[in-house]
């Protein structure tokens, strides 16, 4: 790891002030991707601005229609929160299956979403549930936030403050995971919302996305069989040592069927 300047801040404003004056600063959330990336010298930031001291980013709150999770809330805290489990059980379950227990004690929802790993779990939930990503500058709804592989709509000096999820009782997340990393080789988050079925797909393509073809079929006939007749675009699927594009296209359909079964 190359060396860097380190500062722990206690407010969002201070973090923004430092990053604006830094040559190539990065915000540090849970560090479960950032630090391994830096160890491999794939990232070389001049400054790390540790958001761990900002109390307001660690809060969970809810109202009649939604639950809002601070950006620095860990996966373990999301999985253990009774408030979140009552509002969106599928989201608790997703958080409890990210990585492993030690990773879940450090990794955060804001870090996961800002990193936008193509195989991360949370982006599928944000997309399927139509969640609102709230930053220090503005708000993004659902898939507007995720723009490409490891790319988001965030500016360099923009910090995710919280993510607001509409309460959704009927939803399920199914992933076919890499047995070492626990990242999704293919993952499907299905939510039954007021506007019909919404699906977020992760792990399969360069960036998590809405599964529009799957949604259309399931809005006509909400059964596992209706997934069979869909042709997914194999040319858009990732292909690597873990799975070919054809296999991923198949897995997306299998995970969707399992999610449908779980919601029936």
């Amino acid at each position, binding site marked *: *790891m*190359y*060396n*860097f*300047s*380190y500062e*722990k801040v206690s407010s969002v404003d201070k973090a923004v002030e430092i990053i604006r004056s830094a040559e190539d600063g990065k915000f540090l959330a849970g*560090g*479960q991707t950032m*630090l*391994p990336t*830096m*160890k*491999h010298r794939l990232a070389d930031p001049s400054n*790390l601005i*540790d958001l*761990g001291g900002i109390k307001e980013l660690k809060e969970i709150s809810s109202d009649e229609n939604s639950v809002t999770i601070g950006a620095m809330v860990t996966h*373990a805290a999301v999985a253990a929160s009774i408030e979140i489990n009552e509002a969106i059980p599928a989201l608790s379950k997703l958080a409890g299956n990210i*990585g*492993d*227990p*030690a*990773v879940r*004690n*450090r990794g955060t929802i804001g870090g996961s979403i800002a990193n936008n790993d193509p195989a991360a779990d949370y982006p599928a939930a944000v997309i399927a549930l139509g969640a609102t990503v709230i930053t220090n500058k503005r708000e993004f709804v659902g898939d507007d936030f995720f723009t490409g592989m490891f790319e988001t709509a965030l500016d360099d000096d923009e910090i995710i403050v919280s993510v607001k999820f509409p309460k959704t009782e009927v939803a399920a997340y199914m992933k076919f995971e890499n047995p*070492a*990393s*626990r990242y999704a080789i293919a993952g499907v988050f299905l939510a039954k919302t007021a506007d019909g079925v919404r699906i977020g797909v992760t792990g399969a393509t360069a960036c998590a996305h809405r599964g529009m073809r799957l949604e259309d079929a399931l809005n006509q006939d909400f059964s596992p069989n209706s997934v069979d007749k869909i042709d997914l675009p194999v040319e858009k699927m990732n292909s690597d040592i873990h799975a070919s594009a054809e296999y991923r296209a198949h897995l997306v359909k299998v995970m969707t069927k399992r999610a449908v079964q779980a919601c029936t």
Partner: protein
Amino acid sequence: MLTVSMNVNGQSVSGEIEERTLLVQFLREHLKLTGTHVGCDTSQCGACVIHVDGVSIKSCTMLAIQAEGSEVVTIEGLAGNGQLHPMQQAFKDNHGLQCGFCTPGMVMSGVDIVNRNGSEVDEATVRKELEGNICRCTGYHNIVKAIQAGAKDMGGQ
């Protein structure tokens, strides 16, 4: 350079470190607590698992400075008064190790599993919760047995 202070195994410690110093480096190279191991560079193997403020973390994936002011417990902090911790004793009794490299992380994760799931934790839960700890010798059977036995023995604590 930074000055970092924390409590490790009940003792206040501090040191001069580079910003990039990982917590596991601080423990091993500055404090000479070499019981915590480094088995990979991808945060997957779990040989470096310790407890920070009561929960398990991978000390290879946390900066030392991030533990400023924290309560840290390593494998060296478990035994007391010349007696092995019940989880250590259970690993010994159940042949829960062969080469021993992964064992410090396994024991620290084992204690964490019991802290969260209680002394009657079932086999399926132990296996799922060990996802972040890799052992290349044992095939895990005796590790799982050891953690369940250790859980029962920790019950009274």
